[in-house]
């Protein structure tokens, strides 16, 4: 009993600390508040059930993100019948380097650009660039080789860079036209 109580208290603490962050990750993955809530709830319940396997000293947020990502992958596999491990060729990497416009990019532009990425590429970008995972952690979480993470991440960054450059260009054009 006391072990159960301490387990629950420990888990409560973890959720308190990382719940919002995990919710943010769920939002970034699912791109939809309703789906994000379902994903978050599913993740936390699974995390609680698997909490006995949590080794003290492990990065809590990374552990939760891993469960979240696995749940997300399972869900999209179920609903969309897609193969996460084979999605990196869905969208060709853009040619040309373009100018980095990302520093001034708006959040909604980044959000929009992220949504345009294929699932596999977006997962790599979200986990590494937004959630701060290492290549190894992302590879482990998604279940793909590190080299695949590296190439998907590079592809995603290239696409984002081009898209954000386009958005910035459109913004500049719009601004110029409005001042005329």
């Amino acid at each position, binding site marked *: 009993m006391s072990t159960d109580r301490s387990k629950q208290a420990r888990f409560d603490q973890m*959720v308190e600390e990382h719940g919002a962050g995990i919710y943010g990750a769920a939002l970034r993955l699912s791109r939809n508040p309703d789906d994000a809530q379902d994903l978050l709830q599913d993740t936390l319940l699974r995390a609680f059930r698997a909490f006995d396997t949590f080794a003290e000293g492990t990065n809590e947020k990374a552990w939760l993100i891993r469960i979240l990502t696995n749940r997300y992958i399972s869900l999209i596999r179920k609903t969309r019948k897609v193969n996460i491990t084979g999605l990196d060729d869905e969208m060709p990497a853009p040619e040309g380097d373009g100018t980095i416009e990302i520093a001034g990019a708006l959040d909604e532009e980044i959000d929009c650009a992220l949504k345009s990425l294929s699932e596999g590429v977006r997962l790599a970008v979200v986990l590494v660039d937004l959630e701060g995972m290492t290549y190894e952690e992302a590879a482990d979480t998604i279940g793909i080789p590190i080299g695949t993470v590296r190439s998907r991440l590079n592809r995603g960054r290239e696409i984002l860079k081009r898209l954000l450059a386009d958005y910035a260009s459109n913004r500049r054009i719009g601004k110029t036209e409005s001042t005329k």
Partner: protein
Amino acid sequence: MNNGCDRFDRETLRAWADHAPMSDQDRRDLEAHVPSCADCSQVVADLAIYRERMRSFGADTAPAAMPAAVSAAVQAEMDRNRIWSFPRLVWASTAAAVIIVLLGINHYRNLPQYNVQVSEMLEPMDMMMDEPGKLETSDASRAMAHIEANVGEKTPVLQVQSSGLRMMAVTVVNAKLGQVRYDFQAPSKKMLCLMMYLKRGGHLPSGMKMTYRGAEYQCYETGPRAALCWQTGDRTYVVFSEMPPTQLAQYASELRKQTDSRT
């Protein structure tokens, strides 16, 4: 490739800047090259800006807390888990107890019919003791009527000389321990000898008391293959089980000594 420099592609440069796993040779080559290459340095610098921007992405709209609905659902699940966790033990124990009881009942039902219930017994027989120092006898035929399956025809109710100690009324029961209930009566008192649930070779703690039909019985001695010995008032009754006569005699002798010391 990378803008004007074709030494490393952007993927490799970014992986290096991200401290991704790569060979020591590649790492050394990059470390030596990038600082001196404007094009490659630009890729790395762009990546730094990109990472910085991505880190701040959504910061303004990041949720401050989990949605209440999710918190409630998770809490409810955890509470359910807490509620279940203890009863799981209780229910497992209860289920085990029920199974044991059911097995016990089944076992009891499968016991031979000679396991006479106390309530079905005839009026207890008298155990006669004419005078101290003489043989005490019990009614063998009535005893066997009660426990006919346990006592063979060639296994008489044993008579043990009390040698003036008024100590023994003994019978031999060739039944398995734990299967016999044998009721008989002394001139003044009824006595119940329960040979229940004793395992072969088991002992009862000396001093154990029990009450039957208002009379108190106390076990003051047991032996590894004896069943029960009861002291009731000034009399001692002993029921032996599967004890060879020589051993029984020896046991009776020891018992006599103990009774002597107590009296």
